[in-house]
């Protein structure tokens, strides 16, 4: 067996992808995913998530850098990698005139060691829709069919490109449960998403992509740890920012004023909030719209986007 696969099932080193027109979609990213881990690539549209995943799936040759999946180059050594991976593309990929069952049968015929089609359809709750043509499925049902086909070969590594886009809340939760169950069974999962709660709740580790680069990476806790918490409220009538206690003493590291709305950023949430509330109590004013929240992936995500805007 391959020597390093027990440590890193997916290894990406300084990966780059350039499209025909010269657009550089992936600009030198590196990360690795261990066996039995759920790894999320998070990013806005156009951040380079799909461009990256397609290189991992072996659909295109990188412009630079290196990809190893289960110890092999997924583009050059297709035959060694494909029987052990399952892929769900971002959209489509099925003839619209075939039924669900016909599509599953076709795909099962192309997979070594496929589980029974009915079993795969049952995993995603599509068994009752087996005789429906693909063109008559809803967007969410199509996503689930795609997931069922990705699972047909009982893959060791699963690539899911935006697996829950178009699903309703229940379908999304079902998919999360299924992905967790697969991980618990030893499957390595790499998924992309632009839903923050999906990455936060599902991923063991994640990387935030921005403009083709990794802007932050680690466990959800690690990524949010370096981020400030936020307090926002409306200034009472007749009061100005200068009427507050000195912000530095409150442990505030940044602030914005938008009309009468004040937003504070702090790494010492309890101290800042206490100072602010004690002041309000003493001044006998009400802080309307008070919102106090600890650092979240959302804050990290917005912070990355904000930093980029400032740089531009």
């Amino acid at each position, binding site marked *: 067996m391959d020597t390093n696969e027990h440590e890193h099932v997916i290894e990406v080193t300084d990966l780059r992808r350039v499209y025909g027109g010269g657009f550089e979609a992936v600009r030198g990213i590196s990360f690795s995913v261990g066996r039995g881990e759920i790894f999320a690539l998070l990013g806005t549209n156009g951040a380079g998530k799909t461009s990256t995943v397609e290189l991992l*799936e*072996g*659909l295109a040759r990188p412009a630079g850098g290196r990809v190893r999946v289960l110890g092999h180059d997924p583009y050059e050594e*297709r*035959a060694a990698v*494909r*029987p052990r991976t399952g*892929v769900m*593309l971002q*959209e*489509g*990929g*099925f*003839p*619209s*005139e*075939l039924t669900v069952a*016909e*599509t599953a*049968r*076709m*795909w*099962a*015929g*192309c*997979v*070594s060691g496929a589980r029974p089609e009915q079993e795969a359809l049952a995993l995603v709750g599509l068994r009752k829709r087996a005789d429906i043509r693909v063109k008559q499925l809803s967007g969410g049902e199509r996503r689930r069919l795609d997931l069922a086909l990705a699972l047909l070969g009982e893959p060791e590594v699963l690539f899911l490109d935006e697996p829950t886009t178009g699903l309703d809340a229940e379908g999304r939760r079902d998919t999360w449960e299924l992905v967790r169950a697969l991980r618990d069974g030893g499957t390595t999962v790499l998924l992309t998403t632009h839903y923050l709660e999906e990455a936060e709740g599902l991923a063991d580790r994640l990387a935030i992509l921005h403009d083709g680069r990794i802007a932050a990476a680690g466990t959800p806790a690690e990524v949010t740890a370096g981020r400030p918490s936020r307090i926002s409220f409306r200034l009472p009538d007749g009061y100005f920012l200068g009427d507050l206690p000195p912000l530095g003493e409150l442990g505030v590291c940044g602030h914005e004023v938008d009309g009468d709305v004040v937003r504070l950023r702090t790494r010492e949430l309890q101290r800042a909030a206490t100072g602010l509330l004690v002041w309000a109590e003493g001044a006998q004013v009400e802080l309307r719209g008070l919102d106090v929240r600890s650092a979240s992936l959302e804050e990290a995500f917005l912070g990355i986007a904000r930093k980029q805007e400032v740089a531009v």
Partner: protein
Amino acid sequence: MSAVVFGPVGRRLRALARAELTLLGRNRSAVVMALLMPLSLPLSVRPAVDQMDLKAKGLSVGTVMLTAAIGFSFLFAVYTSLVSAYVARREELVLKRLRTGELDDAEILTGTALPAVCLGFAQAVLFGVGCAVLLDAGAPRAPYLTILGLLSGLVLCAALAALTASFTRTTESAQITAAPLVFVSMFGSGIMIPTEFLPDRLASVCELLPLSPAIRLVRGGWTGQLSAYEVLGAVVTALAWTVVAVFAVRRWFRWEPRR
């Protein structure tokens, strides 16, 4: 061979071909095109054929009609319908999805082509029997040449269909991008007019067209009139076109829609 038929490659090709056959059956315009054109068009050629002095060229109504029918089958049941199929599968991202799996590129293109190629072969057999019985075409004198021509024509049609699909953006425009080869072949490759009736210089150029060798071998196998030299020329030309087409497909085939 048995490894290809019964091994994993055969299993994958069968799965793909089965799905593709289902899709062909559900596409009414493709069915009409594939079944009716090769049957009806030769009949439209019939009045002109009756005017020709076939005996002087060693031909008969039966052999001319037979090659016309097989030629139209190449063009409509195989070539045109496959251009549409490849483009439709690419635009629905089916080809891209298949490439994420275990099939290699050649298997994807072959599996997709199998139903049309088999249909073309079945039509040729039917036409052969039909013309032999109804039009006194008789049995082929050199059947191996007819088979050789048939197989080379079918393979080349599939390869050229993949090549045409490479620069066809939508299934609608497939009607247009497929037209040049259809017309050139109908008039230049001996499908509507036997090349024997073309002026010598034009005929020698037309012999080099993609489907000319296949038609020539099919007809020559039936009449038994081809010299070894002519057979060699036809085989080399057919082989050259196939190599060029396969190379061009490997180089230029588009697996995904343009962004």
